[in-house]
């Protein structure tokens, strides 16, 4: 039997803004093909952690490995090459507002491939069709709804068939049905393309629907307090902060003040 294949390894990562430390000693592994959730309460640094993983913010200390390559110690040119293997969907979609949806998807293809314009256009249409936006090629981002922007953002993130897809709060601001459709789309992409998916979210329904691995970071302790499959964490983790989060506070677990509960790192 083939064991898990580590794809992203985060080692002793400390995130800081100047002298203010946001999170310290983060160490976890994302295996190839995982749907990995970065979860935690509001303001704990989930999106900042994602920015460290995608090359937008350098860590104060610690490392991020993609396979054997140390991402932050690589030469800028090599790091840029590694970044082309990512696709990122931002919370707001972050579509380039002056470009049509097709142009948004096509830009990275124009820059990094030698394909002819007609071929690029076909690929852009295909990617848009994959996310249910066939026929919207010539629309500008301002002309479509929030949910469509998110889907267009996924199409753009998938343009170069990335090895890792990052999602920042994909279901934020969506109605439950659209959020569910987006979850299904993420799973479908993982199943059909074998892409590793890293999702920053605190939407419990999404977490339990799509994740097979996760890390829980805590604002109070400024470090991670749980890792593993969220469904298993719900059953097996006794840490009150994690239980409160995963049960929307219904577990009514209380922490003894002055005594920090043990973290739960499930294998």
């Amino acid at each position, binding site marked *: 039997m083939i064991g898990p294949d580590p794809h992203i390894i985060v080692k002793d990562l400390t995130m800081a803004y100047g002298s203010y430390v946001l999170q310290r000693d983060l160490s976890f592994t994302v295996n190839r093909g995982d749907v990995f959730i970065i979860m935690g309460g509001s303001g704990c640094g989930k999106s900042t952690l994602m920015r460290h993983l995608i090359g937008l913010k350098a860590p104060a200390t610690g490392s991020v490995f993609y396979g054997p390559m140390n991402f932050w110690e690589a030469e800028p040119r090599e790091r840029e090459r590694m970044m*082309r293997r990512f696709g990122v969907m931002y919370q707001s979609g972050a579509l380039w507002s002056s470009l049509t949806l097709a142009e948004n998807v096509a830009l990275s293809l124009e820059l990094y491939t030698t394909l002819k314009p007609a071929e690029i256009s076909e690929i852009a249409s295909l990617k848009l069709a994959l996310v249910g936006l066939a026929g919207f090629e010539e629309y500008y981002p301002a002309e479509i709804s929030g949910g469509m922007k998110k889907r267009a953002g996924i199409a753009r993130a998938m343009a170069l068939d990335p090895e890792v897809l990052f999602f920042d709060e994909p279901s934020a601001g969506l109605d439950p049905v659209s959020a569910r459709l987006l979850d299904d789309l993420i799973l479908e992409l993982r199943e059909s393309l074998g892409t590793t998916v890293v999702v920053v979210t605190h939407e419990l329904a999404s977490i339990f629907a799509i994740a097979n691995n996760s890390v829980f970071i805590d604002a109070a302790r400024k470090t991670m307090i749980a890792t593993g499959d969220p469904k298993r964490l719900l059953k097996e983790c006794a840490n009150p902060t994690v239980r409160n989060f995963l049960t929307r506070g219904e577990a009514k677990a209380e922490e003894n003040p002055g005594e920090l509960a043990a973290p739960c790192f499930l294998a």
Partner: protein
Amino acid sequence: MRISLSGEWRLVNQLPSLEAVAGELAATDGSTAVAFDTRELGSWDSGLLTFLMAVIALCAQRNVAVERGGLPPGVNRLLTLATAVPERQGARRGSGCLPLLARIGEAACDFWRSLLEMLEFIGESAAAFVRLLTGKARFRRADLLQILQECSAEALPIVSLITLLVGLILAFVGAIQLKLFGAQIYVADLVGIGMVRAMGAIMTGIIMAGRTGAAFAARIGTMQVNEEIDALQTTGVSPMEFLVLPRMLVLALMMPLLCLYADLMGILGGLIVGVLGLDLGVIEYCQETVRAISLTNVWIGLFSGFVYGILVALAGCMRGMQCGRSASAVGDATTSAVVTGIVSIVVATAIITVLCNILGI
């Protein structure tokens, strides 16, 4: 100690001061508890809660126990809710003003940081320009053409109006003095040299700082807020090449042309005053203008325009790229872009004037 609460406790009414309670509490030995009698209490809202919170805080300071049993259940529940989450250590910001030396130090640090950021931005722009020269810069031709249109044809009406009026003003001001000596023909010299050598470029620079520099900052700042710049970076596209370079290129190329146009409009303004107000002939005015203006004056004006173009583009793009991630930050970036643009134009004008003086041109 029993506090009796009666009547209406609403924000719209005058609420009683805490002084009476504080005075009574000071007179106690600390062993008594505070209780409430609310049998006469009428309707209440946040006004009552605010008063009670203040009483509870006062009691806590003096180690006096508070018995909340006599309060209405709704008030009790809200008080419990308000005190459920203890204040986070270090969360409260000091309201006091920093000492003078600390403020001076902070301002000096901010200035130094801003200077370093400016130098870094200029360095990155220069590097992007070098990549353009070596054919490695990546931006969209369609964007370049779009910006070209915005910074040239679309700017003509406002440039026409302002510089025509500046020409008129220069001519009027000059005419008042020159008429005294019967030398009104020299209005053409004054307006011609003034516009071509300095005023045409300065006015165009200021118009472009307010119009185009602000638009650059707002556009790029909004992209920063919407994470579009992050998306460019993760796609491996340098925002300096994709966003800043085309804007700098366009303004550096178009500003000298706009200056030339502004010069002509200013001279036209002077001509209108000369012909209608000073009884000069059109041909006479034009001949005097041509005689007065040397090619050196034209080159100085065009060079100034080129420099102002780069400065306005740098100020607009830099403030946009430095923009924070909120709506107010976009407003701040826009204001800052205009101020930086106009200040840098004035400083550059002073430097160019001194240099021309030293070089004798």
